[in-house]
């Protein structure tokens, strides 16, 4: 199981939960599992998210492995100049 | 609106073109003579990317009409190197990495060459003020000023 930390703005979509526990081995699985657990998270995920695994920001990749026990944060998609 | 015939000299070559009286010297250099070294960054004389010399005088070619070039001696960035030998300013600009994107570089080179011809030993302040009409957005000017001043020093030593 992976504990996914959401940004606080998403609490309104998860019934107040800021940490959601899901089963996932990759970033793509994680996003699917999040939507399964909380369908309203589809909107922010469609709008674009990044995932930080142990501090390393995965900007867009859906195939990055999530090692057991990693710290996982959902973040808004990063954009640059 | 009829076009006007102009005979002039660019980088030592006699050239002719027909132009609308509204066209600038910059338009004529770029579009009629295919000398695209001078750039249009603003069209209002505020950026210096179109710098050329006319009878030895540094000007913005966007602030001069093509018809005014009749009988003049124009010099552009394309004429700075002699054959395959770069002018020391060109060499130093490369060595100092005094350009990033390079769009202002032709104007800077024409302006700096004009400075060194008038003042072989400029101070940093004189160099900065002389080049104040040449906008560079990439470098913060640091490496440009160093390249120009080092060229000046080298040319003084050589002479």
């Amino acid at each position: 199981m992976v504990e996914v930390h959401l940004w606080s703005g998403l609490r309104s979509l998860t019934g107040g939960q800021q940490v959601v526990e899901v089963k996932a081995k990759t970033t793509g699985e994680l996003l699917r599992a999040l939507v399964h657990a909380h369908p309203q998270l589809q909107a922010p995920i469609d709008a674009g998210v990044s995932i930080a695994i142990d501090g390393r920001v995965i900007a867009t990749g859906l195939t990055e492995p999530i090692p057991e026990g990693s710290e996982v944060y959902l973040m808004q998609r990063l954009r640059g100049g | 609106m009829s076009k006007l015939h102009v005979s002039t000299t660019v980088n030592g070559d006699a050239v002719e073109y027909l132009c609308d009286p509204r066209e600038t010297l910059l338009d004529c250099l770029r579009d009629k003579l295919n000398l695209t070294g001078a750039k249009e960054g603003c069209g209002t004389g505020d950026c210096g990317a179109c710098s050329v010399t006319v009878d030895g005088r540094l000007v913005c070619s966007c602030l001069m009409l093509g018809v005014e070039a009749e009988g003049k001696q124009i010099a552009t960035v394309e004429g700075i190197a002699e054959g395959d030998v770069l002018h020391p300013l060109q060499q130093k600009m490369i060595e100092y990495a005094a350009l990033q994107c390079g769009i202002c570089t032709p104007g800077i080179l024409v302006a700096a060459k004009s400075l060194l011809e008038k003042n072989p030993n400029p101070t940093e302040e004189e160099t900065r003020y002389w080049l104040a009409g040449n906008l560079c957005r990439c470098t913060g000017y640091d490496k440009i000023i160093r390249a120009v001043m080092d060229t000046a020093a080298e040319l003084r030593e050589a002479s």
Partner: protein
Amino acid sequence: MALDDRKSDFTFVGTRPNRPDGLDKVTGRAKFGADISAPGMLHGAVLRSPHAHARIVKIDTSKAEAHKDVKAVVTRADFAEVPFKPGLEGEFWNVLENVMAGEKALYDGHAVAAIAASSALAARDALKLIEVEYDVLSHVTDVDKAMAPDAPVIREGAADYSVPEGMHPNVVRYHESGHGDVEAGFSEADLVTEDSFVTEATHQGYIEPHACLGMLGNDGKGELWCTTQGHWIAQKTCAALLGIETSQLRVTASEIGGGFGGKTTVFIEPVALALSRKANRPVKIVMTRSEVFRATGPTSSASMDIKIGMKKDGTITAAQGVFRLQGGAFPGAPGDMTAMCAFAPYNLTNVKQIGYDVMSNRPKQAAYRAPGAPMGAFAVESVIDELCNKLGLDPVDVRLKNAAHEGTKASYGPTYERIGLVETLEAAKAHPHYTAPLKPGQGRGISCGFWFNHGGETSVSLALSEDGSAQLMVGTPDIGGSRASMALMAAEVLGIPYENIRVTVADTASLGYNDVSHGSRVTYASGLATIKAAKHAVERLCERAATKWGIPTDAVKWEDGCAVPSGPNAGDFDPMPLADITADMGSTGGPISGHFEATPEGAGVSFGTHIVDAEVDPETGKTCVTRYTVIQDAGKAIHPTYVEGQYQGGAAQGIGWALNEEYVYGEDGRLQNSIFLDYRIPVASDLPMIDTVIVEVPNPGHPFGVRGVGETGIVPPLAAIANAVSNAAGVRMKQLPMSPPRILAALKGNG
């Protein structure tokens, strides 16, 4: 990305060779966007709205179409139907609506029609023949006013899921994040300071206006030459907007005369293609400077509220920020980025940040170097400076005390990997600038800054030639000397001299997809891809050597440009240089190439600390920056001179933003200062030399340790200069730019 064989010992990397495009650029022969023509070429010009907000009742193009010099006229009807979606999901619709207005003109300068004619003058003249009937609507250009209940609505339905109920329809995205309990934190503080800050919109100010040459036939096949930071995104977007297949449009990037984020999207490119399709001839469009200011993508303007609590020893107990960013008539203002970056340099127990993306009647904002981050840093670092002043604490010590480091929980959530903020602060403290005496009337300011950096989709291909030279094709336009950096990294892996590698920015038909040159990603991502592509080629080279020697491939390794037996048991063979292997490669298995395609994830965040001295004339409010030092973590500087150049350029742009650059809108909603005379970027005589210190704390996500360096350099200057000016003037400056009238007014208000 596997972090295999990290390298820390370099032969070529870290040297400072001349750039490969230097000769072209000092002789005037480098081809920028406007420097190309085609046989039969027409010239395009764009008709733009003189109104900030107006319904387009009718466009009559008949007189223009009847003119003998006019070969095509286009309006919105000549583009594809693209679905509208809220927020950033409908970005193709947003871009199309920006490229050519639909039902409404949304800002002064918004394109409403375009013409292709036989000459540039004829095209401009013919614009006057197009008759547009407008129904002028009330407008709003200020972010706070755009959020007010009575503000005119720019577009219903543009808000995405994130916006709380009850907000004005102009608020289109909302971000909230943080951790801990800020109220509890404030109650632990010895001093709490709360203040509001404003920054005006600025422009990237690249010296080269947008320019392109497009050719499109009614068979759906096209060619586009343009000045861009990313030709694949131009390809993808133009194809979508014109309703053609992406692969049928080949896009070639010209040399680019500056971008800084502003050339990451399209403006005139789809218009040139639409005109070309209609006229069946190539069409060139070159923007005027005024068009660049009015109708490309400036930054957001911002209004911000900051509250920070501090103990007497300098410990920050809580920090809170609200960041309202206006990004023009479309979603996209990076309020979320501002919020996430604002407190990122600090190790905070209690932090909360809120960001708003607000629409107004201004041009669609585009990225500008670390988009969103400089504004937030200005507000936050100003309050920290004020707290230091009030508590009598040294500003570097306070920042060191609170600095984020490896293991710190970032203000935006996750735990930091190895980062270099502390190193930049220690370097600042040790730098002679920090302790140099100040003259009367001068003040010193410091600030930290943070930026995420980016990886992004990347494709690189490397081909070896028979003579042992290499050609490297990358897909990221070179905006600051990256061809030199790529060649250095390839040289490092191949073990052949830098000069033997020719780097080309390939067109979209020659390479797989590449993201834009943005997010400080080029040296990181294209660099990583170059290293991997070169390693791929090295594997092939080792295979050929193994075959020639008759030993297993894994018994061969690559050293200093030669295949060598991997150990004494592998056999006794003389090193085989690269050129010996390539010489007959055609008959030993065929051409040898290497390539790499991936989306590298692991860009590595970066931090900088800046020190500024400023002198303020108390009678006129005029500021002079007298000394400037940039200290920033580069991870590993591949070409240190170009790293310095990025630092200096970022600082110079920051100085402009802090002191004089701003978009000035009149009561009529029209831009008042759309020329370089009145949009005041720094000139050579405005600036001192800009000192640089390159800190190198390797990025664990790159084989050579690279962190992007392009953007972070513009994050600290606004705050550092504001702190210097405030300390020199004796009054806290809360609005940028700190133009002389604002400083003088602040001084008078204080006196």
